[in-house]
């Protein structure tokens, strides 16, 4: 392994700007860790050659788990032995990404002992990513993480580590308790997180309001997005204050209302709530004056994903409104039905969104026992080729086949 810091003239260029430099972070780790030194050396070579130097992941892990560790090996192991094994450990983060410093310092200590000293805070899915360790260190890391009450997250064709927005911890717009739900679902589905048994990955993301701060509608197989059913709460005096403070309520607030369900006469804001689409714009623009209603819950949507394989999808409405109250039994029952169907009928590496596209939303709903509702579609079908499943036979005197 590299005894000395590698020469990195290309990467050094990336220390010269004002944005926090990842190269400085790598060099800080490289002062202590020969693994990090070789990582730096290999990355410099990638910058020279314009290509990565990692082999396909291998199957490594800890006993009893089928995921949570991503095997990673350099394709230049002789030149950079420090990264010949450089596995990633996904650690399930605490809901909302809140930490107490004593706990986090202990994770730093164990990663100084067993790994490269480099992390991602956090990976795209939400986990704490411990970047770079050797196969022999996996069990000790797991044991020491466990002693700190941190468990592994998901990888492969499993439930991936659920994540959520800050919710009721620090947001007045949280329409249900995102952190509690996220933790509850994480605990309920530990086996499904740790032992991949699905056709492909399955992600849950919990957002407290339609602003969707964890991008659940774009990347969760099940997107649970807070909403409300009753009237927006209005403090008329505070609305007037915003107007006096220079906010152009007619143009900037009402002009942007997708339902055109608001009126402003210079004194009073009048909202026709039966047409409100819960888009959040007016509330975002005047947080001191407006708030979501009191009958709060969530809309549950299904099926979003990135392009691989059949193209990107956004989630679409599955349950227009549910109260999202513990123990979330109704939703968990639907989830289980969806998984049973998908495990039985889904193709290898077919996300639930692609599965629904293939079998048809109508058939999917029927199979999981949900009634079709107009909220589930942007508009009814335009194409007249309907798959009717029954017809009358003349011989049977009008009985259906």
């Amino acid at each position: 392994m590299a005894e000395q810091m590698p020469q990195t003239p290309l990467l050094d260029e990336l220390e010269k700007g004002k944005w926090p430099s990842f190269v400085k972070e790598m060099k800080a780790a490289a002062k202590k860790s020969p693994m990090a030194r070789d990582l730096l050396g290999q990355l410099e070579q990638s910058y020279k050659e314009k290509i990565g130097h990692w082999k396909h992941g291998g199957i490594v892990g800890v006993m009893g788990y089928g995921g949570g560790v991503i095997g990673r090996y350099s394709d230049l192991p002789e030149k950079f032995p420090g990264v010949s094994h450089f596995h990633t450990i996904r650690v399930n983060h605490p809901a909302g990404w809140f930490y107490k410093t004593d706990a986090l310092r202990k994770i730093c200590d164990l990663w100084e002992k067993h790994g490269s000293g480099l992390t991602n805070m956090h990976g795209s899915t939400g986990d704490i990513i411990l970047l770079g360790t050797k196969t022999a260190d996996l069990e000790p890391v797991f044991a020491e993480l466990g002693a700190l009450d941190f468990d592994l997250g998901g990888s492969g064709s499993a439930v991936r580590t659920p994540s959520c927005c800050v919710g009721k911890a620090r947001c007045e717009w949280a329409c249900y308790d995102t952190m509690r739900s996220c933790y509850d679902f994480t605990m309920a589905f530990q086996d499904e997180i740790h032992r991949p048994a699905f056709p492909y990955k399955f992600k849950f993301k919990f957002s407290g309001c339609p602003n969707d701060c964890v991008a659940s509608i774009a990347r969760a197989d099940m997107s649970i997005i807070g909403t409300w059913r009753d009237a927006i709460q209005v403090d008329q005096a505070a609305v007037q204050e915003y107007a006096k403070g220079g906010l152009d309520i007619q143009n900037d607030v009402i002009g942007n209302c997708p339902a055109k369900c608001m009126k402003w006469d210079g004194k009073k804001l009048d909202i026709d709530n039966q047409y409100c689409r819960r888009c959040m714009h007016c509330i975002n623009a005047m947080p001191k004056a407006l708030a979501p209603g009191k009958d709060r819950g969530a809309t549950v949507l299904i099926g979003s994903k990135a392009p691989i394989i059949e193209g990107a999808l956004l989630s679409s409405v599955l349950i227009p409104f549910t109260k999202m109250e513990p123990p979330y039994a109704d939703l968990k029952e639907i989830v289980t039905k969806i998984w049973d169907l998908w495990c039985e009928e889904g193709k290898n590496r077919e996300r639930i969104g692609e599965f629904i596209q293939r079998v048809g939303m109508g058939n999917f709903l029927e199979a999981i026992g949900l009634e079709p509702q107009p909220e589930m579609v942007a508009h009814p079908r335009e194409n007249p080729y309907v798959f009717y499943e029954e017809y009358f036979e003349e011989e049977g005197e009008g009985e259906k086949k």
Partner: protein
Amino acid sequence: MTQAVAERRTDFGPPQYERFLPPAIKKNYGKWKYHEILKPGVMVHHAESGDKLFTVRAASGRLLSIDKIRLYCDLADKYCDGYFRFTSRHNVEFLTDKSENIEPLIADLKKLGHPVGGIGNAISAIVHTQGWIHCHSAATDASGIVQSVMDDLIGRFEQRELPGKLRIALACCLNMCGAVHCSDIAILGIHRRPPKLDHANLKKLCEIPSASASCPTAAIRPATVNGLPSVEVIEEKCMFCANCFTVCPAMKMNNPLNDGVSIWVGGKVSNARVEPMFSKLAIPYLPNNPPRWPEVTEAVRNLVDLWAKNARKYERMGEWINRISWPKFFKMAGIQFQKEHIDDFRHAGLTFKRSTHLTF
């Protein structure tokens, strides 16, 4: 041994989050009334109890050394009773009920080299992936481009004078870890050469049926090459998705001569005003030009400047373009519209202009 297995503790999950919530949050959990942005990167949440909670948000970088995490811990111990958090966009947030702590905390963060901002109508940190640092399928580096773009746009992070929010994301290949495909500006690593086949090892490294089944355009079929079972690729049917490489390491996609970066615009995930939207292709290809990717940095800066100058208040990039029309956008941005801009995969016809609503 049996006993050791029996004692092994598994499936205990993450720590219960309440252990890590500051007392001011525990007390006011679910009882927040409203918030105000006091200045760039600083906001205050008012609780029904009358309590106030101040948040200071700083750019963190996604790749962190344990030394840096310990320095954050020092700041949290000094100013926030030992509590802090991270955001969904790789920022770090310090929360305190003591307003007198804000300025010294900001000064200490700046000393550490971490700018404060990213709240409200500003650019927040760029969500991104592993790139050459740690991924086998990367068509470009992630951290290096993010570094170069944000070194350039840091001023837009540290203020809040943009028309609306601007969310930039980067994915180093078409797998798109993170919500890259619904960003105001998405930077995406792309391949442009069909897989290079390692026929000698393909049978050893891959399952041939899975390799052929992985192709969304059915361009891969089993074949015998030099007497060995392998696959062949109908190159004109390859759209460089790299799904085959994901299931078969002997179908290598990474290629320094052809890999590069594309730029996409106008996506969003929030439901505010208009419904969530995918990002659309603006620039099909820019070269991989490390260490600073000047072509990418300049392209992103131009797009941000153009939107900032022309959009109306609250208009996100996609809302602005939808108002002015795509032909106008291409003209204003000085981007040549070409064949690659027109979709030719599933549902492509839905993206054709099916009206005479045109601007001239």
